[in-house]
């Protein structure tokens, strides 16, 4: 719990902070994030044109391609520079997921293959997978339960 003195300090201190530029950050996120999705659409169309795939089936190779691109950009040390500009624009697309996993793996290369790369790979993305699975369980089981009750 914060004391009155601490609260007063934090209120005064706010005056010395430049406000987070929410609007310009959002515009940047919109442009870069939208751009990555449009690129995804292009890749998807490419796969649909040259391989006998439906829109749904093309999704997997499309995501894999974007993941590869992001992993490479992370390796070349470019992705973090893009993200400083784009914020959520490069975090929210699947490329951000790839960057989070690749950067963790890369950073811990110095601790070896198993304890380093293997164990640390999921350091940031582990939470995303865990909560994805947990919420999918919750949603899936609820839907089944509802269906049973209706019948």
């Amino acid at each position, binding site marked *: 719990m914060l004391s009155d*003195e601490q609260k007063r300090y934090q209120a005064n201190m706010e005056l010395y902070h430049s406000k987070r530029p929410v609007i310009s*950050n959002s515009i940047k996120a919109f442009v870069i994030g939208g751009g990555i999705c449009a690129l995804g659409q292009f890749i998807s169309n490419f796969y649909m044109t040259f391989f006998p795939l439906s829109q749904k089936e093309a999704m997997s190779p499309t995501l894999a391609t974007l993941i590869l691109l992001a992993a490479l950009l992370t390796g070349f040390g470019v992705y973090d520079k893009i993200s400083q500009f784009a914020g959520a624009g490069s975090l929210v697309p699947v490329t951000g997921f790839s960057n989070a996993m690749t950067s963790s793996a890369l950073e811990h290369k110095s601790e070896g293959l198993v304890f380093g790369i293997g164990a640390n790979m999921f350091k940031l993305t582990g939470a995303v997978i865990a909560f994805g699975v947990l919420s999918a369980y919750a949603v899936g089981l609820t839907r089944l339960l509802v269906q049973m009750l209706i019948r």
Partner: protein
Amino acid sequence: MRLGKQTWEFKQPVYIHSTGTAVGPLEGEGPLGTSFDKIFDNLYCDEENWELAERALMEEAVRLCLAKVNRKPSDVDIMLAGDLLNQIVTSNYAARQLGIPFLGMFSACATVMQSVAVASIFINGHYVENALVAVSSHHSTAERQFRYPTEFGGQKPETATYTVTGSGAVLLSNQPNAIRVTHATLGQVVDMGVANPLDMGSAMAPAAAKTLLTHFKETQREPSYYDLIVTGDLSRVGSSILRKLVEDEGIKLRNNYEDCGVMIYHQEQPVFAGGSGAGCPAIVTFGYLMKEMERGIIKRLLVVATGALLSPLMMQQKETIPCIAHAVSFELEERD
């Protein structure tokens, strides 16, 4: 001799005998670049990984510091060193091959002045004749320990600071020389409830203000006594807050106040609000400010090193950041 509760005056001779600094590329390109002894042109400092790079910086700083005055490690009575990494690994491993009695020091980015203060107490008490102090930090080791992997794309706010890559070493001795260590004010831990590790300037400013005000009170000095007062790594955000906090207590810092974190980089370098890290006050003090004193441009200097005693684990347990600041004053001896 103790003045008041937190300040010690060194009546016996304690002098700066030699200094050594080794820095990374970004610091070398900064406005103080020419004053550092060794500038590595790559962040790896020609080593395999980040931890080895930081160790290379400290070893180089120590080597240069001793070589300048033709001393060997065996001539040194005691070594005090610290850094930001868990178990202060850089210092422990750098001390491994030196064969000097060793004290590991830690108060985050205030480590450098904590170490100088303790070393001066040893010398002032005639327990040793000389003492070696070394402190280091590295952008990437700090980033991966305290924040995210270096290649992770997290967007940082403008209040964030950039950890300085560099190490500063100093040999203190009881043999008379140009610059004397006169006072040390050891700080108390202050926590104003800031919990944002990307805004350490705001977290540390109250600790710096407290130590600074205590120093003025217990030495009965005014800010104008000093030609220059520097804080360690409050950055642009924190140093503005410090001015305000000190002014609220009726003491005005004029243009003899600066911050090492602001001095070390050009404004257009990609460092957000400025530099931080244990190496920041160390390389600015031992690389740049000591040379300015030797030239006689600064005669009386007060260095207030500020430390955010941050632990990622405690942050995740919703704790706030405890902070500390230690001040040491240096004076140029009048020469005939």
